[in-house]
C-alpha cells in the first residue's frame, strides 16, 4: 500500500511539474500556432530572476515572486514583439517560427549562463515532509500540485468567462473572423504570450525551489511539457494538463517494473503512439483539412 501510494504520488508530482510547463506552452500554441520551445528558457530565466530577487537581493519572498512574474510576462511580450511578430509580418512558415523558437531558447539559455554562471543555485525554503497514506511528500511538492490545479481552474475561468478569454478563443478559432468583429489579433497574441510566460514564471519559481537551478533546466522540462501537451492535446490547456499527469504517472509506474534508465524511453514511446494514432491528443478535436 505504502509503495503503491508513493508511486502514484511520485507520478502526480512529476505530472504537476510537467503540467506547469505544458499549460503555458499549449496556451501559446493554441492561439498563435507557434511551437514556442523558448518557453523552457523563459522558465529558466524566471527561476534565475527569482533567485536574484529572493536570495541575492534579499527582497521579501512574496515581492520577489511578484517581480519575477511581472518580468517573465514581459519577457514573453518582448519575444512576441521583436521576433514572432516580425516573422509573422514576413509571412514566415510554421517551420521558420519553430526554428526561431529553438534559436530563442538557445540564446536565452546562453544569456542565463553568461549572467548567472554554470554552477547550481539553490533557493533554501522551509520544506517539511508529510506522511500521506504511507507515502512521503514535501510542502513544496504539495504547493506544486495545488498551484497546478489552481492555474488550470484559473485558465478555464479566464477563457470561459472573461472578455479577454473570449477574444483569445475567437482568435484561436479563426483569426480572420475575429478581426471582423473588431478584435486585434496582434494584441491578443501579445496577451497570450504574456499569460503563457506568466505561467512559465510560476513554473520557474516552483521548479527552481524543488529541483535547484541550472542554466539548461528548461530544456528537458519543455520537452516533457510538450510531450504531455501532445498526449492531452496541444490545442487545449485542460488537455495538456491531463496529458502531463498521464505522462508523469506512466513514467513513474513504468520504471517500477522496467529499469529506470527507460524513463525517457517510456515518455517518447507514449509520444509516438499518440502522434501516430491520435495526433490531436486525448481532448483534441479531429479536424479534417480541406
Amino acid at each position, binding site marked *: 500500500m505504502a*509503495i503503491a501510494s*508513493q*508511486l502514484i504520488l*511520485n507520478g502526480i*508530482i*512529476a505530472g504537476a*511539474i510537467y503540467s506547469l510547463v505544458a499549460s503555458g506552452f499549449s496556451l501559446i500554441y493554441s492561439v498563435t500556432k507557434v511551437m514556442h520551445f523558448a518557453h523552457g528558457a523563459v522558465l529558466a530565466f524566471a527561476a534565475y530572476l527569482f533567485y536574484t530577487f529572493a536570495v541575492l537581493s534579499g527582497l521579501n519572498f512574496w515581492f520577489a515572486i511578484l517581480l519575477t512574474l511581472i518580468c517573465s510576462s514581459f519577457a514573453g511580450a518582448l519575444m512576441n514583439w521583436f521576433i514572432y511578430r516580425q516573422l509573422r509580418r514576413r509571412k514566415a512558415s510554421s517551420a521558420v517560427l519553430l526554428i526561431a523558437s529553438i534559436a530563442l531558447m538557445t540564446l536565452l539559455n546562453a544569456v542565463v*549562463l553568461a549572467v548567472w*554562471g*554554470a*554552477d*547550481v543555485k*539553490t533557493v*533554501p525554503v522551509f520544506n517539511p*515532509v508529510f506522511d500521506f497514506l504511507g507515502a*512521503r511528500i*514535501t510542502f513544496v511538492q504539495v504547493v506544486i500540485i495545488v498551484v497546478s490545479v489552481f492555474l488550470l481552474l484559473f485558465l478555464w475561468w479566464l477563457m470561459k468567462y472573461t472578455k479577454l478569454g473570449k477574444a483569445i478563443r475567437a482568435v484561436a478559432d479563426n483569426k480572420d473572423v475575429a478581426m471582423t468583429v473588431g478584435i486585434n489579433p496582434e494584441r491578443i497574441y501579445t496577451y497570450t504570450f504574456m499569460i503563457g510566460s506568466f505561467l512559465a514564471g510560476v513554473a520557474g519559481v516552483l521548479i527552481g525551489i524543488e*529541483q*535547484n537551478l*541550472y*542554466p*539548461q*533546466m528548461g*530544456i*528537458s522540462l519543455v520537452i516533457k511539457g510538450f510531450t504531455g501537451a501532445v498526449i492531452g492535446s496541444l490545442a487545449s490547456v485542460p488537455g495538456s494538463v491531463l496529458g502531463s499527469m498521464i505522462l508523469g504517472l506512466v513514467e*513513474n509506474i513504468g*520504471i*517500477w517494473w522496467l*529499469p*529506470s*534508465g527507460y*524513463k*525517457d524511453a517510456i515518455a517518447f514511446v507514449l509520444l509516438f503512439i499518440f502522434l501516430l494514432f491520435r495526433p490531436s491528443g486525448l481532448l483534441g478535436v479531429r479536424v479534417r483539412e480541406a
Partner: protein
Amino acid sequence: MNKKVLIVLALMAVLLSGCVEKEAIKVGGLFALTGKWATGGVTEANFVRIAIDEINAAGGVNGQKLELVLEDDKCTGPDSVTAANKLIFQDNVKVILGPSCTPASLPVAPIANENKVFMMAATTTAKGAFDKFEYAFRTSPPATDAALFIGKVAAEKYGLKNVAIITAETEFGQSWSDEFAKSFIAKGGNIVLKESYPAETTDFKTIISKVAAKDVDGVFVSGQAPQDSGIVLKQMKELGLLDKVRIIGNPTTIDLEVNRISGNALPAGAFTVVAYADNPQLLQKYVNRFNEQPGFQFFYTAAMYDATYMLRDALLVCGENSECIKDYFTNLRDWQGTVAKWSFNAFGDPVLAEDAYREVRIVNNEKVYDIIS
C-alpha cells in the same frame, strides 16, 4: 637616402625585438568552463593558470613564455571534440592540458593521438581510457584503483552486506559503480539492485522508492557531477532513506558542493575513497588568487598544477617535439610534485602509492580524511 635608413632601422628594430621576446609556446587548455562540470573544470583551469604564471614569472621555458589557449569542453564529447580540433588545427598547439573529465577526454584521445598532439587529461577515471592512445595521459588514477578501496571499506570497516547502486548513465558514473561492485562482491557483499539514469535527470523519487523497497544497508551513488548527485541525496532525504542506509559514493558525490546543493543532506557517515593530497601552501595560493576554495576534490584538480610543471620540464628537454614529450612522460618516474610523486605506466595512467588513498567524509560541512587500514 633617408628612406633607406628608415627601412634599415625598422628592420633592425624588428630583429632586435625578436631577440628580446621569443615567441611564446602555446599550451592548449581544454576544461569545462561552463556546464555541469564547470565546478571542477574551472578549478582545474585555475590551477593551470597559477602554474603558468609562476613559470612565466621565473623566465618561462628557455626564455619562451607559456601562452595558455583556453577552450571550453563543457565536459561533453561533441563540445570537447570541436574545441580540440580548434586547438590542434587553428591554434596549432602541440600540447594540451585537459580535457577536464571522462566524457570529454574519451573522444579527444584518438584525435590527439592521430595528430601526434600530447594531452594530459584532468579528472578522467574510466578504466582503460587511453590504453590505445600513446599520446594521451591523465593525472587521475583509474576508478579501479580507488574503487578497490571503497569496496574494502564498505565491507570490512562498515560491515555492509547488501548494497543498491544508483548510477549516472555515463562512462564516469558507470565505471565507478562497476568497479565498486566488483570489489564489494569480492569482499563478500551483494549488489541487490542497480538503477541508472540519464545525467540530466532531476526526478529520482521512484528510483529511490525502488531502493527503499529492498532490504539494503547501503546505497552507492555514482553521479556524473555534483548537480545530479546533489538532487539524488536531497530526494533521498525527503523520502527518509538517508536515516536507514549508509551512503557510499564516487568522488563527485561525497563532496562539499554536493552537500550545498542537497541542502546539507550528506550524512556524516557517507564516504568515498579518493587520492589524497595535503598541501596547504598550494591551497593558500589558490585562495589568494581566486578568493575561494577549489571547487572540487583537491587532489584531482590540483593535479593540473603539477601537470603544468611536469610539462614545463618536458618542454625544457624536448621543445615542442610532441613525440619526445610523450616519451618523456612514459619514462617519468617519481617526479616529486605538490600533490603526489608522479610516475606513469605504459597506458598513460598515473601510478600512485597505495597510501595515497584516504577515506573521505563530510562532517559539519568539512572534509574529514581517514587512513585506510
